[in-house]
């Protein structure tokens, strides 16, 4: 019996993506939204690695791409947390429903 092929990994990443979408759409706190975005990003990265392993194992460009994607995820988190800290100091909560200064 051989190990799990490409499809199980794709199924797993699709499920993770769905959970991430639920989080982004339903969470009230901006930090939780940011964390749900991270889940989506990681689902995409899992997809990338699975495709590298099963479709083009000799081409390491995919791994470089994953490294860049992980970096961007970390930067997004740093910038997002900076913004959130600012928002939290200004109004005492990081509830995204309250971030609406530009509404009027």
């Amino acid at each position, binding site marked *: 019996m051989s190990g799990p092929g490409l499809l199980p990994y794709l199924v797993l990443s699709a*499920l993770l993506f769905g959970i991430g979408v639920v989080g982004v759409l339903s969470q009230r706190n901006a930090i939780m939204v940011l964390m749900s975005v991270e889940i989506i990003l990681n689902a995409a990265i899992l997809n990338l690695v699975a495709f590298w392993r099963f479709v083009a194992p000799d081409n390491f460009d995919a791994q470089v791409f994953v490294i860049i994607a992980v970096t961007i995820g970390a930067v997004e988190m740093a910038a997002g947390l900076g913004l959130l800290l600012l928002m939290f100091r200004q109004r005492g909560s990081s509830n995204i429903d309250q971030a609406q200064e530009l509404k009027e």
Partner: protein
Amino acid sequence: MTGTVEWLVFLVLAVVAIGTAAGMLLTMSMYRAALFLMSCFVALAGLFILLEADLLAAIQIMMNVGGMMIMALFMVMQMMDPGGEMMWEMKRTMQLRGPGALSMRMPRHKRGQEGQNGPEGDKERTGAPTEHICPMHPEVRQQGPGTCPKCGMALVPPQADGGQEHETHFTGQGTMRQRQHQQMMMDMAMSTAQLPWAVVVGSASAVVLLILFVDTPWPISGTRPTRDATSMVGELLLSRYMIAFEGAAFLILAGIAGAVILGKREAWSLGAHPRGPQDDKRLYTCSMHSQVRQEGPGQCAICGMELVPVEEGKRS
């Protein structure tokens, strides 16, 4: 590794990844949510090892787990109830069902009341122009949400039984009306009233992705990757992808600098960061000798008194 062991490891890691990702959305405590997400990332790193991408697993753990540590720190600093103990206690006092602090499930209301309560609650949440009042100044009323011009508090939609609501919170399920109960659970939970729709959209997108994945004939290659992936990736990063590598490093620096500057700016605008004398370009004068004028603070050349800004001097 034999196929069976690989399957076993895959299934365990997949269950951990899915379970912790879902747990992140279900828990009532943000600190716990950060830990859940961290374990989700670690499970994914394990899957990377299973996929023979060891380098990526190491990077995944270092970057994401490090990031989640910072996130957990933020949770503890910001949240009123980072461990979720308060909510747990509240749930126990009210004898709600569900697994303690791990659940944010809102109690379902009875069929008969659903028609009256549901749409009304939704209307308030989505910001339809209902009348809002200030909790401190009941005379302040306006259409739609906003802040009170007197005290700056956020305006709230008027409750049918307004002030007594807080007292009845802890008195048990018996005295609390269904609607109050639902409203309070909604305020406590970390998700908004749009949760059911979010679940529908999330499941739909997952199903669409699954159909696409299953339906596409992927050109699967039978070869195994070379063991020396790390040196290959390093070589690529330093030759063909040098610019991307440098760009990523620059992005990290820019992100950190941006976070620090954003944090600082607030301190400046609050006046917590006092202006140094060299920044002060206002005109100063002596309160006794009005002919003495200079840019920036200092002492009067005639009497040695502290100079005052010109505007203030005029006012006094």
